[in-house]
């Protein structure tokens, strides 16, 4: 809980970088940096595929993706913890996530995806139940493109952004935000929603059927039970 609060506070200070980018990242090399985000699978359980690429460099480069997620989706912290232990995937959430709450009772959150030592990650994301609708059968959830931050062990100058060094969130490091990425639209997913125009018939038929079953069982218990 304390770590979430600390991270949430820090995220308030993650601001867009100014024009003074780090000298340790040559501008020519920065042009080679690219990022792609894809979403796979169908239904309520999707995978976000992140890939960051850059040309060869002698520096050890760490990448951090700051992904803002709307209230229509969530990430399961327990699943992320299992993945972290089993596969080394490092994802940090800025707040506690209620996995059962519907979309209209939830708020958006931010996920920090650390790509230290690797350039791609697959992060599971799940859709929330949305409010039933009488006009459409599906709802579209848009995920904006993540912000890309880079850091090098060999260089501490030209600070633009402060963020946790790793998913353990024990210390803060200085990162450089890459602003001049190729225009990349975010991804989106469509989720089915219930039909609110059927509310009366659903309630009526459900209660009626349940009463019918109840009466049948009561009759049998009364007739055949040992009293």
């Amino acid at each position, binding site marked *: 809980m304390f770590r979430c609060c600390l991270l949430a506070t820090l995220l308030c200070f993650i601001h867009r970088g100014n024009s003074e980018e780090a000298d340790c990242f040559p501008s020519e090399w920065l042009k080679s940096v690219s990022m792609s985000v894809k979403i796979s699978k*169908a239904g309520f359980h999707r995978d976000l595929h992140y890939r960051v690429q850059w040309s060869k460099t002698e520096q050890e480069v760490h990448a951090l993706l700051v992904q803002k997620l709307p209230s229509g989706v969530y990430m399961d912290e327990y699943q992320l913890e299992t993945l972290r232990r089993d596969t080394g995937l490092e994802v940090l959430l800025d707040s506690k996530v209620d996995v059962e709450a519907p979309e209209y009772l939830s708020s958006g959150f931010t996920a920090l995806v650390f790509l230290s030592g690797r350039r791609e990650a697959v992060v599971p994301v799940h859709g929330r139940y949305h409010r039933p609708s009488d006009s459409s059968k599906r709802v579209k959830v848009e995920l904006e493109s993540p912000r890309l931050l880079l850091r090098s062990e060999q260089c501490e100058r030209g600070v633009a952004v402060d963020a946790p060094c790793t998913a353990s969130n024990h210390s803060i490091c200085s990162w450089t935000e890459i602003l001049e990425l190729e225009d990349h639209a975010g991804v989106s997913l469509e989720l089915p929603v219930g039909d609110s125009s059927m509310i009366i018939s659903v309630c009526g038929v459900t209660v009626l059927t349940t009463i019918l079953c109840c009466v049948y069982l009561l009759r049998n218990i009364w007739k055949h039970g040992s009293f």
Partner: protein
Amino acid sequence: MDAWLCVMFSVTLLIRLALLCFGVYQDQNLRWVHCGKLLFLGSDLLSALLLFRLLVLHCSARSLASVHCSMWLFNPLTMAVSTCGNAESLLAVLIYPVTYALPVALSLVGAPSRGRGLIQNLVWCFSRDLFLEQCSSASPFTACEYGWDFLQESSLFHLTHRDIHHNFSPYFSMLYVTAEHHWSVVLVLVCFLLQLLLLLLSSLAFCCSIHTAVFVRFNKVCTSQMPFSRSYFLWYLCLLTLVLSRLTLSLRRGLGLLLWFVGQELWLSHAYYLEFEGCNSFALIWIAGLLFLLINSLILGQIISHYRPAEAQLKKTD
């Protein structure tokens, strides 16, 4: 132990271990089998062994007892639940829901009597004797010791818990479409009262199994083998196996079982397309849920009308 019993347990152990290894193979992110799953697998087998011992104690022939146990052991649902990492089989071995306080209390202070009439029996269930019996049980002392958290997690959770995600409960669709309406609390109360009414009326082993089946089937939430939720089915499947030997049904028993699987598979297929393919099958899940309730009620009704207590069966064989 019989040779057949050894074979049965060995085969089901091998099937479960194979499922665990398949899970590791399929999810290439895992590198080992979690110890918790081995514990649940063990308690799964232990509950089958306890079932067998109880059935033999209640005068079932060993061969018949092993057939009934195999219905628990070879049930794909119980296999999937314990190998997925769900702890419901531990409940079967160690702990059971607090709702058993009611049948235990009723059997201790005296059962309802047919002579009183239905309404008077329901009123009697809230009598002074029953209240005093509950006060002298462990519940109030445990509540004082552990406070609100104990009460919430052991008793009140099932009264207030509402999960609008698709599940086997017949009330799922109703609770989902009315979630934001302030009058939905009335519907929740109706659900609870219907459940309570059935629970108040019903010998102890038979009562617990019917009691559990009613509690689960008429509950506001009834989830299955998901890793992070309860598998309500196992709560009554285990105990129903215990009473199967006392049923006078014959071919009907097999048909009822088939009907149950048909109802379950119908619901599961629509739920699969909703959750994993993104199809809008909410209406079909609603209909399948109600159909599953009707099938379960029919089967329960048949079990209630064809159950013969042990003493009646003994008299018949004399």
